[in-house]
């Protein structure tokens, strides 16, 4: 048991280091500038922009292959199971399961809030973890939010690294996991060290796989139809996912929509450019 545990940790650290070094390489190659490009207010205006780093995807071939694999996995396995699951288990209970998985990520959020210097938020997350684990019965309920008004402060290592100035690196689409990038993958590996489920996988791999699958099925059962609708509305579903992922991560990094959002309306500054364009063209 001990050796297995040791090997697992060594394996993760090796991957971690490998990815960090890879990330450093790719940043110097220029693919890591995406975040900077997106923060540039003129990006919103694009009309005269010839190249957009937004669309950088050097591993598109491989990524697309994995995308097709995941897409198939969704329709052949996850969706049918989730549909049955949603019919058997009442929605309230599925929400509870989702809360519990979320609660397990508490330590990740506490640590990353700390690493970003957000001490108040770290405190809020600590309070949330304590309240929800006890009063919320192992995180099944969310009394911290309902009773105390403590809103989760979602931070992960990927975001922490971004605030340290590390670019997203190459875009990656992982089998099973889905859209990511080099930085966020490093983040995922790092964060997994703070996730109790990782230690479950060390002692009982099949239980860990089962838990991961259960979490995925449960999450899907709560959002059934969203994936299909998004696919239906897309012209190029793979690209649509890639962009949605980038926008989503960007929002998370700048804490869009929260009180910490410094760039919330920075794009409004370039309004003059847009209106002049409009007059010329109409």
């Amino acid at each position: 048991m001990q050796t297995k545990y040791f090997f697992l940790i060594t394996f993760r650290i090796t991957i971690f280091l490998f990815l960090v070094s890879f990330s450093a390489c790719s940043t110097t190659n220029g693919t890591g500038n995406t975040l900077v490009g997106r923060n540039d207010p003129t990006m919103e205006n694009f009309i005269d922009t010839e190249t957009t780093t937004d669309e950088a995807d050097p591993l598109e071939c491989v990524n697309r292959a994995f995308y097709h694999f995941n897409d198939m996995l969704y329709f052949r396995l996850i969706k049918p199971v989730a549909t049955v699951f949603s019919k058997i288990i009442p929605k309230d209970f599925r929400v509870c399961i989702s809360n519990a998985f979320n609660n397990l990520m508490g330590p990740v959020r506490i640590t990353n809030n700390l690493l970003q210097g957000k001490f108040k938020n770290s405190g809020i997350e600590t309070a949330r973890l304590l309240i929800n684990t006890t009063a919320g019965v192992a995180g099944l309920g969310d009394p911290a939010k309902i009773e105390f008004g403590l809103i989760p402060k979602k931070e992960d290592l990927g975001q922490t690294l971004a605030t340290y100035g590390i670019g997203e690196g190459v875009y990656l689409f992982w089998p099973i996991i889905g859209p990511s990038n080099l930085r966020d993958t490093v983040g995922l590996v790092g964060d997994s060290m703070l996730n109790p489920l990782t230690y479950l996988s060390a002692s009982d791999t099949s239980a860990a796989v089962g838990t991961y699958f259960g979490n995925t099925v449960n999450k899907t059962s709560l959002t059934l139809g969203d994936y299909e609708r998004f696919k239906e509305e897309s012209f190029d579903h793979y690209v649509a996912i890639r962009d949605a992922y980038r926008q989503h991560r960007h929002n998370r990094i700048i804490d869009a929509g929260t009180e910490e959002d410094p760039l919330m309306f920075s794009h409004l500054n370039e309004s003059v450019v847009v209106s002049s364009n409009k007059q010329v063209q109409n």
Partner: protein
Amino acid sequence: MKKILIILTSAVLILGYVHSGFSSRSEPIDLVKETIDRILKLLEDETLSRPEMRKEQKKQILSVVKTRFDFREMSKRSMARHWKKRQPEDHDYFVELFSKLLMNRYVCRVESNSGSEILYKKQIIKIDKAVVYTVALKNNTEIPLVYKLLKTETGWMVYDVVIEGISLIQNYRTQFTSVIKREKYAGLIKKMEEKVAKGEDAN
């Protein structure tokens, strides 16, 4: 004396009208609310919701949406650098197709959120741009919907909708760029036509 009274009364009335016009009706947040209320009313209308009236309902919704959504601006923004390379007639056709697609997508979204409460949180105005923050509340979950508006000659017009943090126009822009790169402009138009036809069949 009577004359003065009349002048005073009318002055008060005019001022009151102008004031109400400025303070409530022309604020972006109120305009967005008014438009959404009108769409929701059409969607909830029992006569219009009958299957045979579906086309009529859509037509009426489109006319409401058109008063507040600037589809041309949206098309321009989603086509980005490819917009300038096309002829004006291409533009018109593109705007026509794209507005139908956006309509379907937007109305579909509003419909799927029906029964939810919409909160109009705040607006931020900067020169000729405004951002209106709304939240759809349903089953304890909050779905943030942000409208970006531009001041034009016809008033405040929506040029982008941000659903759960994802800008619709930016999402289309990356897709259009990718499709044009691989299948040229004609390929994109073909795909759009197919989608529009599919959307019309579905209703």
